[in-house]
C-alpha cells in the first residue's frame, strides 16, 4: 500500500458545482458562526464524490479557502482518514471486508475471485480505470458476511460466483441489486425465520398501561 504521507496529485482547478455548493452551505449552517471549519469532513466527502472518487491538491486548497482554514489543516485531515483518496481511483471502488467475521466466512475467496476476474490485487486499479480493489476493515454487516462495498452499496452473503456476477454486471454498465445475494431479506436468518413466525396476539397485561400514553 502506498504511504498515506505521499503528496496528493495535482489536478485541474477545482470548484464545487452549484448543487454541491448549496449542499456545502447546508453543512456549514449546522455549526455556529465562525466554526465553519467543523464542516471539513462532509465537504471533503462532497469534493471527493464530485471529483471521480479522489481529492486533488487543488480540491484540498479550494476547501481550505472555502472554510477559511490554513491549507495544512486540511491536508492533515485528508491524509489522516483512509476513506479520503488522494490518488486517482477506478470508477467502481470494490472494498472487500477482510475482518474476522468476513474472513471466517470466506472473504479470502471473495478477494481471490476479484483477483481472478480483474487481474488486480488489493490497492490496485485495472488498466481501463474501471475497478479499484481494496481490503476494507469491518463495515458493520457481519451478520451477512462475507460482504463488500462498491460505491455506496453493500453486497452481502457473497460467494465467488456472485462476486464475479456483480463485477460483470458493473462492467456492463448495469447496477446489480445491492444487499444479500443469497436471496434472504435483510439480516433475517439464512434458513428462514425461527421466531416471530406468526402475527403477535393481544398485548400482555404489562404492556397495556404503557400503551395508552
Amino acid at each position, binding site marked *: 500500500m502506498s*504511504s*498515506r*504521507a505521499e*503528496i496528493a496529485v495535482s489536478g485541474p482547478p477545482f470548484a464545487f458545482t452549484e448543487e454541491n455548493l448549496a449542499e456545502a452551505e447546508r453543512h456549514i449552517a449546522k455549526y455556529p458562526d465562525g466554526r465553519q471549519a467543523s464542516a471539513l469532513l462532509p465537504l471533503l466527502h462532497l469534493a471527493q464524490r464530485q471529483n471521480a472518487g479522489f481529492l486533488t*491538491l487543488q480540491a484540498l486548497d479550494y476547501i481550505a479557502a472555502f472554510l477559511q482554514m*490554513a*491549507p*495544512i*489543516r486540511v*491536508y*492533515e485531515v485528508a*491524509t*489522516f482518514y483512509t476513506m479520503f483518496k488522494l490518488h486517482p481511483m477506478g470508477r467502481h471502488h470494490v472494498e472487500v471486508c477482510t475482518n474476522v467475521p468476513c474472513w471466517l466466512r470466506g472473504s479470502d475467496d471473495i478477494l481471490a475471485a476479484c483477483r481472478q476476474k480483474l487481474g488486480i490485487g488489493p490497492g490496485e486499479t485495472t488498466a481501463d480505470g474501471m475497478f479499484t480493489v481494496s481490503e476494507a476493515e469491518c463495515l458493520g454487516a457481519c451478520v451477512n458476511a462475507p460482504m463488500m462495498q462498491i460505491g455506496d452499496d453493500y453486497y452481502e452473503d457473497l460467494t465467488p460466483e456472485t462476486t464475479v456476477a456483480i463485477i460483470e454486471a458493473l462492467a456492463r454498465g448495469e447496477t446489480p441489486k445491492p444487499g444479500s445475494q443469497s436471496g434472504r431479506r435483510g439480516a433475517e436468518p439464512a434458513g428462514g425465520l425461527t421466531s416471530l413466525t406468526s402475527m403477535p396476539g393481544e398485548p400482555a397485561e404489562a404492556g397495556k398501561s404503557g400503551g395508552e400514553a
Partner: protein
Amino acid sequence: MPRLTIDGQEVEVPAGLTLLQACESVGIEIPRFCYHERLAIAGNCRMCLVGMQGSPKPIASCAMPAADGMVVQTNTPKVHAARKGVMEFLLINHPLDCPICDQGGECDLQDQALYYGFDRGRYHENKRAVSEKNFGPLVKTFMTRCIHCTRCIRFAQDVAGVPELGATGRGEDMEVTTYVRKALSSELSGNIIDLCPVGALTSKPYAFVARPWELSKTESIDVMDALGCNIRIDARSSEVLRVLPRVNEDVNEEWISDKTRFSCDGLRRQRLDRPYVREDGKLRPATWNEAFARIDAKLKGVAGERIAAIAGDLVCAESMLLLKRLMEGLGSPNIDCRQDGAALPAGPRSAYLFNSRIAGIDKADALLLIGTNPRLEASVLNARVRKRWRSGELKVALIGPAGELTYEYEHLGEDPRALDALVAGEHAFSQVLRDAERPMLILGQAPLTRPDGAAILAAARRLADETGMILGTRWNGFNILHTAAARVAGLDLGFVPGQGGRDVEGILSGAQAGEIDVVYLLGADEIDTGRLGNAFVVYQGHHGDAGAHRADVILPGAAYTEKDATWVNTEGRVQRGFFACLPPGQAREDWAILRALSEVLGRPLPVTTLADVRALLLEAAPTFGTLDAVVPAAWGEFGEAGAIDAAPLLPAIDNYYLTNAVCRASVTMAKCVATFGDDASMKTGTHG
C-alpha cells in the same frame, strides 16, 4: 489557591497551574518533550507521567490542572517504570545516530534517555524511515529522528502565525511536514530549531560545524534590529558559529528573528582586517600610523564647519560619544546619527522611544500602526502583538502599505492624512482608540523619513494626546519603532547637528557642492555614497560595504560580537553587549580607535580605559546609568505642525534579509533572498 501534596510535601500553588508547573515550583523536575511553557499544551509525548492517589493509572502532569487535595508522587518505582515505558516507545523508531547528529550534547532525548532509557532495545523489527523535508535555507530536517512532540507545529501556528507545518498521515505514517514541500515563510522560523527536543530540526548553516562543548558562550545583545534581543553568542576561537536567544521577558521572551540567528556567518566575510589608504584612486593596505597620519594631514587647516560625521545603524554608544567629542574638538557641528534622515528630535526622550515598552503590548487593547510593518522591522515584537491579538483583547489598525502581518487589522489606507482624520474622529477606529483602556500607536521609520516627517510626528503626537494614550506615569501609548540598533543611543547622546550644523541630507548635499571637505563615516553604509562628491572620506567600521568602498582611509573596527559595548533599544533600555571573540587581523575596538586618532590629531580625548568612556557616557546622559531597565521618559512637545502630504506611505525595509552590512555579507542571508525572492518584502506582501 489549591493546596496539594507533592512527594509528601504540602504545597500551595496559584490557581490555573498545571501539575507539572506545580512540581517545578517546588523544584521537582519533570521530564518532558512536548510541553513548552510558551506553547499551547498538547499532552502527546507522555513523558511527564506522575502518580496520583486515587488514579489507577499514571497521569500526564503537563495537561492536568493542579487541584485542591491532590496527592502526587513523582518519584516512585511505578512512575519511574511508566516513564521508562514511554521512553522505550519513543526510542523504537528513533535512530541511534547520536554520533552524527547535530543535536548531540544538547538533546533532550539524549539527556532523558540517560535516566529513563534502557541499555538495549527489545524492538528487533526495522525502524521506520521518513524522508527529509525541505524547510528552506535555514532549517535542516532529519525527520526520522522526529518524536512527534508537535512543538514546531504549535510554534508556527500560534507564535509565528504562519500555519504551514502540520502532522499528516496517522499512526506509523504520521509525519511533520509542510506537505506541499515549501520553505517556511516566517522570520521566526529558526526558533523551531531551539524548540525541537531532538535532532529532527537543526540549523542548516551550522550543520556538522561544532559540538556544544567546544564553544565558548557569551551572553550579549543583538543589533540586527532595534529591539536589542538578548542573545548568546557561541564562538570557537575567533569565529562566531551561531547565535541563540536568551530569555528576557521584557524584550524578546525567548525568541529571536532569523536575521539575528543566521546572519552571523556575515561576520566572517568581507571584513576589514587592516587599515587602508587610497592612493591613485586605489585602496592599499597601510599601517595604523599611516592611516592616522593621512587623516591628520587632511584635517590640518580645515575649518570645523567643513568637517562632518555620520554614525551608522550598528554602532555602539561608546564610539558615538567619542566621535561626538572628537568632532566638538574639531569645531564641527555637522554630526548626525539618523542615516535615513528620520525627523526625530534629540529630545524630549519620549519623542523617540517605544514608550509603552515591548512588554506593554501584553496590556494594550487598541493598536494603531503607522507606516510600519513590524513583521519585517521587528519580527519578535510582531510575535508579541500577535500573542496579544490572539487573546482577543487587542484591536489593530494600520495606516500605510498593507502587509501580511500575522494578525487581522483594519486597513485605514496608505494616505498619512488619515492621522488627521483620526484626530478629528472621522474614522470609526478613532472611537476604538478613545474607548480603549490602554490604546497605543506605533510609528515606523518610513513616515519620518519623508519631507513631511516632522508633521507626521506632530500629528501622531496629537493623536496620542487626543485619544487618551497618555495617562501620566501609568501608560504612554506613543511609540516609535526604530529599525537601527544604534539610533536611540545616538539620540540620547545628542549625536545630531549642533548649532547651525548640517544633518545627513545637508552633509551629503554639502559634500556634493564642495562645501564639506572631510566626512567621517562611523559604520555608515546606508547613505548614498555617490553623493559624497570630492570629500575626503574616513570610514571606520567592520565590513567592506558601501562606506568602505567610497572611503579614502579605512579604519578597521570591531563588529558587535567583538567588543564590550553598550546599545540602547527602541524602548530606551540600556543593554551591554560583551566580547565573544577577537576582531580579525589588526581591527580594534571602536572606542580605542577614536581615542588613538584623537591623540594623533592633537586633541586627546580624556579617556584611557573603557571604564572612563562609560563614565563619560553617564555624564552625557544619566540614563546610561540604568542597565537592563527602562527609565520612563517624560511627555513633552515635539514635532512640527504642518500639512501632511497625500503621497502614500512606503515600506521602511525593502528586503528583510539585507538591511545592514553584516547581513549583506552573509551567505545564509543571500540564500534566503534566493529562496524568498529578491524582494523579501514581496513575500509578505508589503507592496501589495
